[in-house]
């Protein structure tokens, strides 16, 4: 009687473990030094990463959660539709994200579809990720130039201190991008050190905040580019509400700033 064929090739547990460790370690060693280190894997960070990686810039995104995409999975009030105002839909077109027109100048897309497409676009462009990794501090050089970040595993932060005296490690990069949303973690760290002073975001004013966020996107401090809602916190701009066009365009502008500075 013929033996039933197995679907999968037999591989032992130890080989699986070796493959994970080896794959992770090789990539991590390579990306201990990169051209651009993006802190925060939300829409603006992904957009920066995607655009610069397409131009061959070695890019690592550090994300504190297991999942990438930040708030782009869902719109306001946990409803999974995301909106963009014109001309943000041009980026949706570019990424192949389907959408519908809601009213003149406003478009709505499925959050999961939009977010997964953006993540895939960043991956396809060559961006690498360190997820479940928390930003802890900045690496500074002469003249307080930002040239890297100190990071640690996210779970270290969530456990009792007695068992989590785990030293962080440092990653170096020519540019660091703060795309950590309203928290503006990197900028805030510079503020703690007395190097920068943030203002905090103002009241919500959707009509104006998107333009202002894009217009203020750029290098806030030597070596540090700020994108997305971190821009609003840094410069005290109005908060935005559940619309994402400015996140995508701010990311694109951040990428343009980096590419220009790399020339």
């Amino acid at each position, binding site marked *: 009687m013929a033996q039933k064929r197995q679907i999968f090739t037999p591989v032992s547990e130890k080989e699986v473990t070796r493959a994970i460790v080896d794959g992770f370690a090789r990539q991590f060693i390579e990306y201990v030094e990169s051209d651009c280190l993006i802190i925060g894997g939300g829409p603006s960070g992904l957009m920066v990463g995607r655009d610069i990686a397409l131009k061959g810039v070695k890019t690592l995104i550090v994300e504190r959660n297991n999942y990438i995409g930040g708030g782009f999975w869902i719109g306001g009030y946990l409803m999974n539709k995301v909106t963009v105002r014109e001309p943000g839909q041009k980026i949706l077109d570019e990424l192949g994200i389907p959408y519908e027109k809601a*009213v003149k100048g406003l478009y709505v897309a499925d959050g999961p579809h939009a977010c997964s497409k953006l993540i895939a676009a960043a991956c396809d462009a060559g961006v690498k990720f360190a997820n479940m990794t928390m930003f802890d501090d900045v690496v500074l050089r002469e003249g307080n130039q930002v040239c890297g970040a100190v990071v640690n595993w996210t779970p270290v932060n969530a456990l009792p201190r007695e068992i989590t005296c785990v030293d962080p490690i440092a990653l170096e990069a020519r540019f660091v991008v703060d795309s950590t949303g309203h928290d503006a973690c990197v900028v805030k760290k510079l503020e703690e050190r007395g190097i*920068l*002073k943030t*203002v905090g975001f103002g009241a919500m*004013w959707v*009509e*104006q*905040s998107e*333009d*202002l966020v894009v*217009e*203020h996107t*750029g*290098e*806030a*401090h030597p070596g540090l580019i*700020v994108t997305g809602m971190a821009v609003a916190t*840094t*410069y*005290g*701009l*109005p908060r935005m509400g559940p619309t994402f066009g400015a996140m995508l365009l701010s990311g694109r502008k951040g990428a343009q700033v980096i590419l220009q500075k790399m020339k």
Partner: protein
Amino acid sequence: MNLPRFIDLYEEGDLNGLDLIQLGEYLEERTHIRFRVRGNIYGKITRKKSEEVAKEFGGMRVRDPGKRFVSGVPFQGEVEYERRRISNPTWRIFGILYEGGLYQTTISKLIVKGGSVFNRCMILFTNQLLGTWDRDNSRYHARVSLYGFPNLISVTGLVEAPAKPKGFYLKKQMGLPVEELKKEYQGRFLDHGDLRVTEVLKGYAMQAFFFHITGDPFCEDRDCRLFNGHWQEEVLHSQMDGQYEFCPRHEKILEGIRH
């Protein structure tokens, strides 16, 4: 009375359909003083000056309307934003609240070049938001106009500063979409790009003129175009539906000037 030889009208940014020629003709007709449209306020400044002005504007943002203004060193990103704004005569973006008094000083340095300030009634029409500190309720308020040398009139301020009908805010707080509320209250307040803006700002320009000649831009008569309306409905009434254009007292002053 300080009668100017000219009324000079300057522009800053995209004024969203404001017709300065029509407005100037109105001023000339009412005052018999020649008007000149002087164009973009930054049109003739040097690169060095523009750099200086960008830094000044960057440092005069009102960060917290609930606190007195404290000057500080602007971020490089803020200065760059101002640099781009200044260099683009059709700049459309607004939303930053600037300290009005400081803004006026900077503009004054750009257009008051020696001689007496009384020779020209200078009015800058801007699309930026200007605020002044209100001692009564201890906070900054956006303003439509700041009278002085020069006078500043904000097209954006005209929409954002005078309060809309109370019901608009109550329903907005209840979560009704702004677009729906705009339909419901259509006509009762001015919106960006509103076709009535030129007509309404004629009255504000006359307030600037009266400030220039008498030091007092306002009138307490709510039917007079010099009435200082704090509500959109008051503004629309005094500028468009008043019993007369100017109250008898101000009309008499204008008649005296014309003859």
